[in-house]
């Protein structure tokens, strides 16, 4: 596992930060981001897929009232792929009719898997295969502005996960970034760096760190290891390891 990885640095892999508006569709936006990133890495072709298709064509038919990321992948498998965001754009409400058949598919998946709940294995998969979706407890995000959140089970229950986001990388802070070190000048302080995950949210680019946030890596912060799920793109027999920038 490399010490740092940031798929945002790879051109065409991570699309722009989305805004879910008044629609509880984080699950669909994270799944779309996962498919886009995997497709760009495996096929070396940048695509932006339709979140609206996931909402309109899901088996439950009420995609703006929440959902599970695996429902998004089942919809992609049932529809043999997804249309482009340009052809089938996001409306912020569920349409009356699934319009999947009207548009050409721009990306498709082979299947989807749940990874191990081991953060080191998740980092390895992220670095060698690409971004994945995770479901976290979003409680601390209501007041979050920037920096690395280092939660405890008391401040952020890892069992109560309620928000799906895209995991796009990991890194570590320089020792000078630790707030305790700069705030408590009279105390002897740790100069250790903090390892973190980089996550893409769907609350617009004006929220957090330009639409992204960072969570401590190595402590199952906010339940990040509970549902690490990814679509698989490309043929399973073609082993094609990639390198995260």
């Amino acid at each position: 596992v490399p010490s740092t990885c940031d798929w945002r640095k790879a051109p065409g892999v991570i699309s722009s930060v989305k805004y879910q508006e008044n629609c509880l569709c984080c699950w669909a936006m994270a799944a779309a981001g996962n498919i886009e990133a995997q497709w760009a890495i495996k096929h070396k072709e940048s695509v932006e897929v339709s979140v609206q298709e996931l909402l309109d064509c899901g088996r439950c038919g009420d995609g703006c009232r929440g959902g599970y990321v695996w429902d998004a992948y089942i919809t992609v498998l049932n529809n043999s792929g997804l249309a482009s965001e340009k052809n089938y754009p996001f409306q912020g409400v569920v349409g009356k009719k699934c319009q999947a058949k009207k548009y050409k598919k721009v990306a498709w998946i082979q299947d989807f898997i749940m990874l191990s709940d081991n953060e080191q294995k998740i980092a390895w998969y992220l670095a060698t295969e690409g971004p994945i979706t995770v479901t976290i407890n979003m409680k601390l995000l209501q007041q979050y502005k920037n920096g690395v959140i280092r939660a405890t089970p008391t401040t952020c229950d890892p069992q109560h996960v309620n928000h799906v986001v895209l995991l796009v990388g990991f890194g570590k802070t320089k020792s000078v970034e630790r707030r305790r070190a700069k705030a408590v000048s009279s105390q002897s302080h740790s100069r250790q760096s903090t390892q973190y995950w980089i996550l893409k949210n769907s609350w617009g680019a004006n929220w957090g760190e330009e639409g992204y946030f960072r969570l401590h890596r190595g402590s199952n912060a906010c339940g990040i290891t509970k549902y690490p799920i990814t679509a698989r793109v490309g043929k399973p027999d073609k082993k094609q390891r990639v390198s995260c920038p």
Partner: protein
Amino acid sequence: DSFRVQDPGPRPLELREVFTLFQIQYNRSYSNPAEHARRLDIFARNLAQAQRLQEEDLGTANFGVTPFSDLTEEEFGQLYGNQRADGKAPSVDRETGSDEWEGS
């Protein structure tokens, strides 16, 4: 002559002023004075909560005024969470075995 008024320097913003700045920044308006008062109260509680989080956090995170500062925790969960999964995500058995591509 011995009594001098010292310049106290710039005074901290009052809660209401901070709330007004929040309303301007995030384009918030409320239907009536009672709703305004309720949102101001929620805003104050959230600022206090952000301050607590700031003090307790062991990382480098900064907490404070955000676009969600006039929402209760319940409203925030209902408006932005993954409601279907909220608190009742199914128990999924983890498959034992390989993460490799060959797995069925």
